[in-house]
């Protein structure tokens, strides 16, 4: 992996993307003993609006905590795609929710599409796990942390009752993405 790897999760406030970023940071920092920093920016809206969560992962201490050239980016809504799917490096990765994003951002990067929200709602029956589906997919597409670390980190965060659901969500996301590559 590169010295400094930058991932951006973007979508609507309330979709749990900040949590996705935190989980990834924990996987990298605690489980894989790398340096990691997660930061976010959000609007005045408690729900909705475009929000983003960025995770920097590096082998050496992280000074500047915000993205400089994004290695991989997720956009769960059109608004966030328009606002935040930029600064992606050549050959980088962009993952979009196929239902929500109709106008694809253009650029020299690989764009992948998955029905993330729908998967969460339909296949898993709970919209709130969409962020875990997305996380699984992003980890599959980037290998920034191992599949196992990602899963461990996810499960460490959720209450007993939701372990199974989240485990399923994570692998579903991971598998769907793998299938795209």
């Amino acid at each position: 992996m590169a010295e400094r790897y930058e991932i951006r999760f973007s979508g609507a406030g309330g979709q749990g993307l900040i949590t996705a970023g935190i989980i990834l940071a924990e996987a990298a920092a605690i489980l894989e003993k790398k340096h990691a920093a997660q930061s976010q920016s959000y609007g005045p809206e408690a729900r909705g609006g475009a929000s983003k969560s960025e995770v920097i992962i590096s082998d050496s201490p992280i000074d500047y905590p915000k993205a400089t050239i994004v290695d991989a980016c997720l956009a769960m809504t059109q608004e966030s795609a328009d606002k935040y799917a930029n600064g992606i490096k050549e050959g980088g990765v962009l993952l979009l929710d196929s239902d929500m994003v109709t106008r694809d951002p253009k650029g020299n990067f690989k764009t992948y599409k998955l029905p993330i929200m729908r998967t969460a709602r339909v296949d898993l029956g709970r919209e709130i796990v969409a962020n875990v589906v997305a996380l699984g997919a992003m980890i599959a597409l980037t290998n920034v942390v191992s599949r196992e670390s990602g899963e461990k980190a996810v499960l460490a965060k959720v209450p007993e009752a939701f372990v199974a659901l989240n485990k399923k969500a994570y692998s579903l996301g991971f598998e769907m993405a793998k299938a795209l590559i």
Partner: protein
Amino acid sequence: MAKKVAVIQGNTACALGAMYAGCSFFGGYPITPSTEVAEVMSEELPKVGGKFIQMEDEIAAMASVIGASLAGAKALTATSGPGVSLKQELIGYACIAETPCVIINVMRGGPSTGMPTGPGQSDVQQAKWGTHGDHATIALVPSSIQEIFTETVRAFNLAEKYRMPVQVLYDEIVGHMREPIEFPEPGELEIINRTTPTVAPADYKPYDTSFGDVPPLAAFGSEYRFHVTGLNKAQDGFPTTKAELVDAEERRQIRKVESAENAAAIEKNEEYLCNDAEVLVFAYGSTARSARYAVNEMRKEGIKAGLFRPITLWPFPEKRVQALGKQVKAIVVPEMNLGQMILEVERVTKGSCALGGVFRVDGEPINPGQIMKKVKEVM
């Protein structure tokens, strides 16, 4: 056995640092982006028998903190922009009544409601001048999650040691970002508690200078009884308008922070690659992180750049900056405001080197590129 490590937010680190320091009272009022400090305190304090109270507004929060401190508690409040402005009158009260307490200011965009969810560093001069009347100020500006923890502990120590309010200012970026922190073991960091009186209760004077510039402080509800007022007071704590007494008290209160000895004890800076530096970046808070990144990049390009990072912002590290000003060709000051601390740098360097500012108030962080660009301009 390895230390406990966790990936937490700056605001959480602040609250946990306060708990580590022995904080037993939090009086607050929610405001973005500082609210998480209160949220964590509301959960942690009762676990150890401490008290959390959400007051009706920031003024009441500050009042409750001073009241609790006088009753012997280590007291904390946390707020942002508008809340800091509202607290100004009572911050002055804490100064003149010499009441230890810690005020967290998680800086957002201003003025007024401004940009509540955006970062800023526009309150750094307010930290010194916000309240009316002459008073001394201690303000700390951590720039990482780990440092927010340790500086919050230091803030309590300084507050207790010098019997005064201490402010900790950090911007929304470090306040909300998460990175790994190693929790110090209990006892690992020094914890200072206020000196309490040893004299007989009958002889106790709350501003008794026979013990030096920082008089011992008893607690309400102890065996000591005393009077506290926001008026200019004599050593016995009662109001006076006697010129010589007022003068002595006011100057002593300033000395607590600005006497050569105390200022040196309070000062804390990080100097990174300064020894051979030809150009210096003066930066604090999250901006210092961009600055370090920039300095490293410039060093790669062969530019002899260094980073001076005040961790204690007030009292201002006058001597050190002056000395560096004579050493380097130029100093670049990036701030998420329209030029505040650069005025202090200008004052103390007295034109001995070129100065350049990188200012942003648009809610976006200052990136390393901007700093590098400015360095190249001024050199």
